[in-house]
Structure formats: structure tokens, C-alpha cells
């Protein structure tokens, strides 16, 4: 007996981007009415000025559908060209049904392979790496990858150390084939986990069921362990830090973003490397933050088609993943 496999392609690339945020803006002044905090304290600690919070009747899947539809439109593909949908999320209201199948159907990608990935704030980079390999192996023609989160459902609105950080949004990318080596637009993923310190970011299954984070421990981990992951992603793609045009780390906390950028510059990244700071007006939106930041930067003209962007996600698990991509 002999199995047959489709021939593998040279690689994969991003064909389109899209994102969605709820309309409702929550400022630092709004939060100061609910918990003991103030605008300056929040700006100093996390770099956030305002964030978007979804109303009760806007679901995580609603946001995923909107971002996903925009990415498909941007890619120029028809929904019929897409056969796989991956939703990275860690904030679905219930374990089943998953987000991906409903999202696929509502975007118009019927009978799609559809599954969720939970690697929290590293989720988008995990899903993007998976999608790139599915396309390269010939398992999928084109895959829609979406990071979507409704963190407001899980945040403890009495906890001033976390309620100032998190927000709601979705971001998406369409991944398609690169037939030749010159077309490859998604580098190999560098990923891993640190389950030994899993409890530092958790949603307790006990009485409260609210998000808890040991901020100082997570800050130390993120500011020291993530730059090496980013450097590994650069090396795996056969590049050097000086090749990177744009750094788009998970928008966890502006001070973590700046610390990662500083470490990369110390290792040869350029001073003029642009660094995503979407967190300032979007908050920390977990798996949505990277594709949304990339989409926003493209709209603002701060990244251009063909430029090299270094993505790196990190968060609960603890999990981390990064790769270099060519901006669509």
C-alpha cells in the first residue's frame, strides 16, 4: 500500500488583513470612577490612554466575523477559496461550541475546517504558524486566521491592577500559498511554553471565575524571555535583526513593548525600526492585538507592503511564539 500526499509548497504568505473594535471607548478617567486609580498612574504603569469595551449584546464571535470578513475582502479572495478557519481565543463564554465553526459559517466559508487555538496572548502567532504549515503542506488552499477576545467578560472590574489593562477586539489575516521561494511571506515559527509558572496568569475556576495576574512576575518574564524568542524567529528565517523594518509584539503593556525593542536594538536591530504602540488607544486585547496593530499601522501608513515585520506573542500558559512576516 502506498499513501499519496500533495506536494509541499515553498511556503506561505499573508494575503490580507482586517480588524474590528467595539465603538464604546473607556478612558482612564472612566476607570477612576470605579476603582482607586488615576490617568497618570495608568499611563505610567501600562501606557494605556483608552480602550474599547464591547456591550453585552456584542459577542466574541460577532467581532471575529467582522474582522474575518474584512481580511477576506482585503485579500481579494472569494470566501469559496478559503477552506480553513482558525480562531485564536482564550475568552469564549463557554467551552463548546467553539468560535471558529460559527465564525466560518457567518463569514460565508461553508463546511470549513474550523478550530480554536488557546495559547492566550501568543494565540495569533501560534495560529499563524499552524496556518502557514497547513498551506505549505497542501492541507489547506487558503486559511483565515483570527484572534478574537472579549476580555471584559472575564476581567475583575474591582481589581485595579488588571481592569486598567484589558479590552475587547478582533484581528485577522488570510494566509495563502507562496509558490516560489521569492514569494515566501511567513517565516518559521519560534515557539514554546513555560508551564512551570502557569499560575502567574489565570482565570480561577472557583467562586469568582475572574482573571488574575501576578503582574511583577509576568513583567519580569516578558521583559527578559521574549527578546530571545524574537531573535530565534529572526534566525530561523535566515535573517538578522538589522533586516527587521517593524516590530509588532503583543500589546501587553507599553513598558514591556519598549523593553523588548530595547533588547533587540542591543542585539543589532535598527534604531529606526518602527515599534507598534497600538496598546495606547486599544488596550491589551490578547490574541487580537498583533493582527489589529498590523492592520492599524498599515492604515496609518506606518508600514508598507513588502516590509519585514517581526511578530511575537506571549502570555498565559505561559506561552510564546514569534515569526517574521512580509507585510501584505
Amino acid at each position, binding site marked *: 500500500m502506498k499513501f499519496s500526499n500533495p506536494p509541499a509548497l515553498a511556503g506561505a504568505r499573508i494575503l490580507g488583513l482586517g480588524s474590528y473594535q467595539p465603538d464604546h471607548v473607556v478612558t482612564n478617567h472612566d476607570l477612576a470612577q470605579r476603582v482607586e486609580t488615576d490617568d497618570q498612574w495608568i499611563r505610567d504603569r501600562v501606557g494605556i490612554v483608552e480602550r474599547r469595551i464591547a456591550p453585552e449584546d456584542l459577542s466574541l464571535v460577532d467581532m471575529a466575523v467582522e474582522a474575518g470578513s474584512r481580511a477576506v475582502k482585503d485579500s481579494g479572495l472569494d470566501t469559496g477559496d478559503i477552506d480553513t478557519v482558525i480562531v485564536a481565543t482564550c475568552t469564549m463564554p463557554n467551552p463548546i461550541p467553539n468560535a471558529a465553526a460559527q465564525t466560518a459559517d457567518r463569514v460565508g466559508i461553508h463546511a470549513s475546517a474550523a478550530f480554536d487555538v488557546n495559547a492566550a496572548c501568543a494565540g495569533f502567532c501560534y495560529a499563524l504558524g499552524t496556518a502557514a504549515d497547513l498551506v505549505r503542506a497542501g492541507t489547506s488552499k487558503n486559511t483565515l486566521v483570527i484572534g478574537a477576545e472579549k476580555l471584559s467578560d472575564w476581567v475583575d472590574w474591582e481589581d485595579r491592577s488588571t481592569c486598567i489593562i484589558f479590552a475587547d477586539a478582533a484581528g485577522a489575516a488570510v494566509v495563502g500559498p507562496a509558490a516560489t521561494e521569492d514569494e515566501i511571506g511567513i517565516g518559521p515559527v519560534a515557539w514554546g511554553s513555560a508551564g512551570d509558572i502557569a499560575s502567574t496568569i489565570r482565570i480561577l475556576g472557583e467562586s469568582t471565575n475572574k482573571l488574575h495576574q501576578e503582574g511583577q512576575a509576568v*513583567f519580569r518574564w516578558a521583559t527578559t524571555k521574549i527578546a530571545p524568542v524574537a531573535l530565534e524567529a529572526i534566525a530561523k528565517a535566515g535573517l538578522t535583526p538589522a533586516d527587521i523594518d517593524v516590530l509588532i509584539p503583543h500589546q501587553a503593556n507599553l513598558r514591556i513593548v519598549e523593553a523588548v525593542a530595547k533588547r533587540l536594538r542591543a542585539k543589532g536591530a535598527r534604531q529606526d525600526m518602527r515599534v507598534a504602540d497600538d496598546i495606547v488607544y486599544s488596550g491589551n486585547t490578547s490574541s487580537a492585538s498583533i493582527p489589529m496593530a498590523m492592520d492599524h499601522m498599515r492604515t496609518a501608513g506606518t508600514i508598507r507592503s513588502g516590509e519585514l515585520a517581526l511578530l511575537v506573542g506571549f502570555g498565559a500558559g505561559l506561552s510564546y511564539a514569534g515569526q517574521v512576516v512580509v507585510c501584505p
Partner: protein
Amino acid sequence: MADNAEILTGLAEIVEEVAGIDTAEVSADKSFVDDLDIDSLSMVEIAVQAEDKFGVKIPDEQLAELKTVGDAVDYISKNQ
């Protein structure tokens, strides 16, 4: 092995780089929080850099005990 004066000088340089405080302000009697107005996240950054510079481990629990610059110099001196 750095002596206490060298540790203080090195630590002051780290504090200046992380928190933008002039090295002359960073003396042994100063409290990180009350006198130098350094927040908890900057303290983590200072600890991480001090670990690299002096070859010590400063876990978060220990970090919380280091109230003054002098406390940090003593801890680094004993543990390097």
C-alpha cells in the same frame, strides 16, 4: 567581586538608565519608592539589570524587602 562602593556606583548607573534619576541622587540612605519615586515595574527592571551586572539572583520576594539603595547594596554584596 565588587566592593560596596563599586556596587553603589554600578547600581546608581542602572537606576539612572532605567528611571532617569541622576547618579548623584542615588545614595545608600535613599528609599527607592519614597525618595526616588521608583515604581514596582522599574524595580523589576533594575533587579534584572543588577542580576546581569553583579551575577546575583534577586527574586521578586527578595526585591520587595530591598527598601533602600543601601539594602540593595548589602544584598548584592552578600550574595555575589
